[in-house]
């Protein structure tokens, strides 16, 4: 059957026949790099048009409908616009940090791509501590935001950055606890192991009530961590004009914009991996026939379908809810999500020990 992993293996074999082992590694790294960057570009384009269409339909509008068929090329036009715009650096800014920040943001999201399984046996780096790696690296993204806010020498930017710092540091905890509950159930930090443990059903179905709570907490936490509404305080436009990227323009702004969308994709991919089985097709217990039929749908489709479902959820939140205030945001984390998450982790652990899950 056709699958991405077959293509990858074929490329690997072909390179192995023609070059020495060291060159093969170099070539494969280059190919992987190009793939990641092009995935970035494609994801940026797709997610922007998706966001605009989703928001438009919820707001009883048509949305972009001029460029290309049904406006599908709108985000390409936007990119061209951003590319030709002047990338300004304000006078009082710390020039080095100011220019570094957007690249840092993009590098962090690139690093996060590594341990994600896009299809069956298709991932960049089969890391045995994949989950830990993801939660560790995703915290680095706050540095780029702080850097941007500080270096802009603008009070709005500074306040946006500080808000964002407080927010990401807090919500990291809840996201971590929610992830831990799945780690407890599978007993592994490896992404592949976690996916394989869902071969007889995804955790969201196997895990009863505690896993649902984990899932909801995870959704809230990742929305906050990616600075999306209703937690977009770092860039709350009615309060701080544009928050940490007030002073950015042109491509530098576009990089922040892209990093935000790719971050959304990555956290949703992780959510899909942990709770919805990643590329694992929809399997029910021991219904071999049904499971077999489900296997005919390519694993990459399953992965992207689930991820985009979660992305849609996050967009849906954004276009429905008003924004929280900064103290309410921290209250929500420390008074609600964290205690609930901790008790829930206890429940999950009990469930794992007593084997109550399916």
């Amino acid at each position, binding site marked *: 059957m056709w699958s991405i992993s077959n293509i990858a293996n074929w490329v690997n074999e072909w390179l192995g026949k023609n070059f020495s082992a060291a060159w093969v590694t170099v070539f494969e790294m280059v190919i992987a790099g190009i793939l990641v960057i092009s995935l970035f570009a494609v994801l940026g384009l797709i997610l922007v048009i998706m966001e605009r269409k989703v*928001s438009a339909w919820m707001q*009883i*509008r048509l949305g972009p409908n001029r460029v290309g068929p049904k406006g599908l090329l709108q985000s390409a036009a936007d990119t061209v616009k951003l590319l030709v715009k002047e990338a300004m650096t304000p006078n009082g800014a710390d020039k080095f940090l100011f220019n570094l920040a957007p690249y840092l943001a993009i590098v962090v999201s690139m690093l996060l791509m590594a341990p994600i399984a896009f299809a069956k046996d298709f991932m960049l780096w089969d890391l045995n501590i994949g989950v830990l790696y993801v939660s560790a690296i995703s915290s680095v993204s706050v540095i780029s935001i702080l850097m941007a806010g500080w270096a802009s020498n603008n009070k709005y930017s500074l306040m946006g950055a500080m*808000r964002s710092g407080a927010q990401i540091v807090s919500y990291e905890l809840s996201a971590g606890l929610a992830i831990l509950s799945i780690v407890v159930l599978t007993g592994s930090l490896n992404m592949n192991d976690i996916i394989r443990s869902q071969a007889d059903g995804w955790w969201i179905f196997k895990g009863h009530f505690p896993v649902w709570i984990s899932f909801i907490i995870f959704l809230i936490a990742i929305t906050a961590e990616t600075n999306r509404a209703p937690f*977009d305080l770092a860039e709350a436009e009615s*309060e701080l004009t544009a928050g940490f990227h007030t002073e950015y323009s042109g491509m530098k702004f576009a990089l922040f914009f892209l990093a935000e969308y790719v971050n959304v994709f990555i956290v949703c991919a992780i959510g899909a991996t942990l709770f919805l089985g990643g590329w694992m097709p929809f399997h029910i217990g021991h219904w071999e026939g049904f499971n077999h039929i489900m296997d005919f749908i390519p694993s990459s489709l399953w992965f992207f379908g689930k991820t985009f479902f979660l992305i849609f959820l996050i967009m849906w939140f954004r*276009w429905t809810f*008003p*924004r929280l205030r900064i103290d*309410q945001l921290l209250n929500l984390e420390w008074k609600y999500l964290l205690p609930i998450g901790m008790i829930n982790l206890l429940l999950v652990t009990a469930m794992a020990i007593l084997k109550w899950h399916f």
Partner: protein
Amino acid sequence: MVEEIGTTADGDLIINVGPQHPATHGVLHLVITLNGETIKKVEPHLGYIHRSIEKMCESLSYRQFIYVTSRMDYLSSHINNHGCALLVEKAMQIEVPARAQAIRVLLDELTRIASHELWWGAMAMDLGAFTPFFHAFREREMINEIMEDTCGARLTMNYILPGGVLEDIHPDFVKKTKEFIALFKRKVDEYFELLTGNIIFQNRMKGVGILSAEDAISFGCSGPTLRGSGISCDVRKHYPYEIYSQLQFEEVLETGCDSLARYLVRLREMKQSIHIIEQLIDNIPEGDFQAKTKAVLKLPKGEFYQRVETARGEFGIYVVSEGGTTPYRIKFRSPGFSNLSALDHMARGSKIGDLVAMMGTLDLVIPDIDR
């Protein structure tokens, strides 16, 4: 090296909100002193669109000055015009035909709904919810179309003359208004689902921008801002003009004194306006829509004051006449100017996010403040 600019001796940040800022809906310029996220002081700087309408009116005749007031509170332009026409009619003792009165009141209430719709959407947008804005504009668009049919314009209607209205209502007016009422009644429950009931929204509004009844009176607030503090102040009830004394409606009062109370007052006021329209729409008296007036209007010597209830509060017109064709001195008491004076008091000690909510519920229209 990074320079320290715009800080006070205590290390507080001084931030300019406006004149171009997404939250100010116009060119309001607020200088706020911040300690971290907490507001220490809000200081309005006005005048960015001051056109000195009061000075302009001193050289305009009593027919002409009415239309300048459309440009003050552009969201209740019809009500502003109405107030000016009432003043001239009161001073010259012009009897307005019953049909014209009914038409004026109908359009007043439609204007009020349209203004509150825009406020609702814009305030939701300030709080970060974008969708309600478009939903509010769907209903507002219908009112605008009714206005366009009858008055010939969507925003600055210029429909009122001293002694009546410019033209009779459009043949489609009754039908379209009924359609609007039917649509509005269906959609107003969605407002609750989208915003009012939302837990995030409730938390953003409850206990935010407390303005006690004594303070609200002292600051000269009016309209929904004062009624949100539980003080009855509806001009339509206390100093009824036109046919308001014959109509059944309830003055909306909330006792919460906070942003949520002001919000609820406006939402409930929309329903009351619909109630007024329903009473009138089938009972527009037959007859003339305009009284016979002299070609040149001359007010007798003296001083005149007329107040009307706009969507934002009490709009007052104070005219000193020397008996000529133009006013000697005219003063517009705009509701927004007084409401704005309470902002500093309300905002002290709250967060920046609250400031946005407060400005939203004060429903500031900048040309109204600047005049």
